[in-house]
């Protein structure tokens, strides 16, 4: 019989634990006798937790307990994603979270527990996300990737998903190092930076923000995992943006890239962070209460009507000038500064669905009646082939 070799299938441990149904609620941790290799979060929470517009609490946006190292920058980004989704009152299950492979790509398991997640193939998150987006344009697509994932093995997929204008929020959790394989340089590691073992990197770094700008991303930002007040509104604005949003988040690796000589350590990034602006995402239609000095706040209205209030920190910086942004970045990078903030936004962005002129109804809901031309059309085709 195909496939069934009557061989001896030997297992070292009994198979009585393979069916998760022995555990009530499946995710409740600690049931005696159950061997697990994941950590579920306890269900209880404080009764007085604040609720958002939809009646959800923070807890409703959380996922499993992180298995990353204590103090990892990625966990701060996870917290920021949770915060942004809570603030925007997004229905958690309307988000599809897609990642590649690596430390960063593990994180979608740690937020939005009621969302479908897809931990795909190393470097291939962009193509999987593109396909998912084509199938159902109504969901929110959150792509989470790392610097190994997006700047090395998946550099091509990163580039092409950006140039197609896929409606997504593409977050790179950038630590300049391969964590899961214990500390090799990644392609975003700066030239001259030193590894934990003392090796000096001689290769030039890839700046994903510069590439995203060049390839036509319609929302480009950089932030730092240690600066949640900057990061949360950036993520929220990126989610609201209808087009290819890209955020490069410098996220120090506590285990392999947080030492002196690293340019991705907490200390180094704090010292060299040059924020060009701060933003607030405006929820609702009420007029904004401006409490900044006149001329320092710019309100950007996006295509879907959502608004961002942008507080300028650098008077010369114009986030609607793509070419200017590229020049600004290059100049500051040469001075060793890490430019952060909302670097570019095109409020009139178009996405891949607009380019393909696809129907408003998600493709995955079209039935045979909508898709199959039927026998009459086929008879005509047959007749034309004689």
């Amino acid at each position: 019989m195909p496939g069934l070799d009557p061989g001896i299938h030997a297992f070292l441990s009994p198979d009585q634990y393979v069916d998760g149904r022995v555990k009530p609620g499946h995710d409740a941790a600690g049931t005696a006798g159950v061997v697990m290799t994941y950590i579920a979060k306890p269900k209880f929470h404080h009764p007085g937790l604040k609720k958002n517009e939809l009646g959800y609490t923070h807890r409703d946006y959380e996922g499993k307990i992180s298995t990353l190292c204590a103090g990892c920058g990625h966990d701060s980004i996870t917290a920021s994603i949770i915060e942004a989704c809570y603030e925007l009152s997004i229905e958690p299950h309307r988000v599809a979270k897609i990642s590649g492979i690596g430390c960063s790509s593990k994180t979608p398991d740690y937020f939005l527990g009621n969302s479908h997640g897809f931990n795909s193939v190393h470097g291939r998150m962009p193509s999987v996300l593109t396909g998912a987006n084509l199938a159902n344009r109504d969901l929110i697509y959150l792509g989470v990737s790392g610097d190994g994932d997006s700047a090395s093995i998946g550099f091509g997929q990163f580039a092409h998903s950006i140039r197609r204008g896929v409606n997504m929020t593409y977050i790179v959790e950038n630590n300049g190092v391969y964590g899961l394989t214990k500390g090799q340089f990644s392609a975003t590691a700066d030239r001259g930076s030193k590894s934990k073992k003392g090796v000096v990197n001689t290769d030039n770094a890839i700046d994903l923000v510069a590439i995203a700008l060049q390839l036509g991303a319609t929302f480009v930002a950089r932030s730092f995992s240690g600066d949640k007040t900057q990061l949360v509104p950036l993520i929220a604005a990126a989610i609201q943006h209808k087009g290819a949003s890209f955020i490069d988040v410098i996220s120090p690796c506590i285990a392999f890239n947080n030492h002196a000589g690293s340019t991705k350590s907490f200390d180094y990034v704090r010292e060299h962070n040059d924020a060009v602006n701060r933003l607030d995402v405006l929820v609702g239609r009420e007029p904004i209460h401006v409490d900044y000095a006149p001329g320092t706040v710019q309100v950007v209205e996006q295509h879907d009507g959502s608004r961002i209030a942008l507080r300028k920190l650098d008077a010369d910086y114009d986030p609607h000038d793509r070419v200017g942004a590229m020049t600004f970045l290059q100049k500051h990078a040469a001075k060793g500064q890490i430019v952060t903030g909302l670097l570019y936004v095109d409020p009139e962005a178009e996405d891949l669905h607009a380019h393909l002129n696809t129907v408003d109804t998600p493709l995955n809901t079209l039935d045979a009646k909508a898709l199959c031309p039927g026998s009459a059309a086929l008879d005509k085709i047959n007749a034309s082939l004689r």
Partner: protein
Amino acid sequence: MSVQSPISSVNDFVVRFANVNGSGSASANELFARAILRHGVPVSPRNIFPSNIQGLPTWYEVRVTEAGHLGARGGVDMMVAMNPQTWDKDVASIEPGGYLFYDSTKPMPSSKFRADITVIGVPLTAITNSTYTDPRQRQLFKNIIYLGALSALLEMDPKLIEQLIGEQYKGKEKLLSSNVHALHLGRDWALQNLKCPIGLRVKKADKVGDRIFLEGNSAAALGAVYGGATVCAWYPITPSSSLAEAFTNHCKKLRHDPETGQAKYAIVQAEDELASIGIVIGASWNGARAFTTTSGPGISLMTEFIGLSYFAEIPAVIMNVQRAGPSTGMPTRTQQCDIIACAYASHGDTKHVLLFPEDPAEAFEFAATAFDLAERLQTVIFVMLDLDIGMNHRLCRPLRWDDARQYDRGKVMTREMLEEGRDFGRYLDVDGDGIPFRTYPGTHPTKGSYFTRGTSRDRYARYSEEGPVYADNMQRLVRKFETAQDLVPRPLQANAAKPTKYGVIYFGSTAPAMDEAIEILDARGHHLDRLRIRAFPFHSSVASFIADHDFVYVVEQNRDAQLRQLIVNENGIDPVRLVPILHYDGTPITARFIANAIGDHQDHLKVTPLRKAVS
């Protein structure tokens, strides 16, 4: 040298056109094939072309076959030699007694011809140049002029050709009349200056019936439209590109909302095959029917994702239009050489479903069915075409669609089912068929979400590295593959008139050559039962067919007897009982080749009594 009498044959001969790539000959040659079809005489044309766009030699071969033998025959009865570059080889390839048609504008030394063939010279360039001044017109109409001359030589009905030209240029009066004019220029010259007809003739018959004439790639693309595919991601590669392009064209006609003009499909030309299959997997994961088209090198690139499709159980359809490998191999030549590569694609323990269509009609059916199978089995399905089926027009039965047919969307747990409190475990086998339920992203606010991953996990999709959990899942995947065995198209068996100890197994594009070979072998006194395999995993009838015969020939178009290997491996068959018959030079397999190979082997098996042998 004995005098060779010219070949005389009605409705049974091979004409080969030797052209230069990019000279616009393809449409004239195709017109020739279609015109013969309009006489009620079946034809089987084949493109033989290099991996190049312009300047290199290209051939178009038309087998005229009233008997309906649609495989390649081998040999050339008439050569239309329009390419000086390949002249010597082309002339040498003509059968003794055959015909050579050439442009006689420039005189050729007699050493360039053969004594045992009939040479027919028509001053094509002279006729063309005296009629047309535009260089492009000269080139294009030269092709129609030789078609006109051929119609006279082969005694074809010019009205039927005119009718075809009329259909082709409907509404473009100027083009229509100028083409008809060119046709008659050639025809009249031949009638006035040559002995018409020659020994090869086309006579009206009634052997085409309601059959249609199309390429397998176009048919498979149409199958994808009918099968409900909404997402197609692909990367250009010969010989599969025309499949994606045909899908685009079919969709433009059949898949736009009549009111809004919006598209009920999305096609992405990806940056490489990795992205193509990634997009397909992402779309299928999200509940759309998606496919990619590729050929061997693309399959090699896709293997990591194919393993993900298998292990994470995500539907995907891959249409593999096979070409000669390995590596870049012979990109424009046909083979059935990716059987093992696809059946076991990816690292770790993997097995995949393969479908083997024999012609465009079956390519249409299998392409549509592939989407049902992919969603039912939640895994990758390969539709294994090849260049011979994909890029050649083939006469085949009309395409059929039952309007009552529903798409099988497989086991999808809906919001209502979750509300009812149905237990959802993404990798939980609730029915014993190895197939779990899945949910589409966004189904329910609190129930039915799960995390898809290529790492091992338990029945509820939670990460696990526990040995028993892993093994439990791997065993279920085997059960699922067993389920597939009864869902895929079954093999078709045809028995010899008399009981026989010998059988033959074949598949895919070998079918027409095999059918013809059976007739030749019957005439030689070798009778065989035959089984056409249409899918992998193999149905139990494959093993019983082998058990019922002493020897079974396995005919395939690759060097390593890949289907035979798969049968031996998967069914535990003694290899000695399966005799490989292998054709792998990149040309389509012929009936002559099969009949000779099997016939010779049979002759050796037969012990002829001495008395009979000497009498």
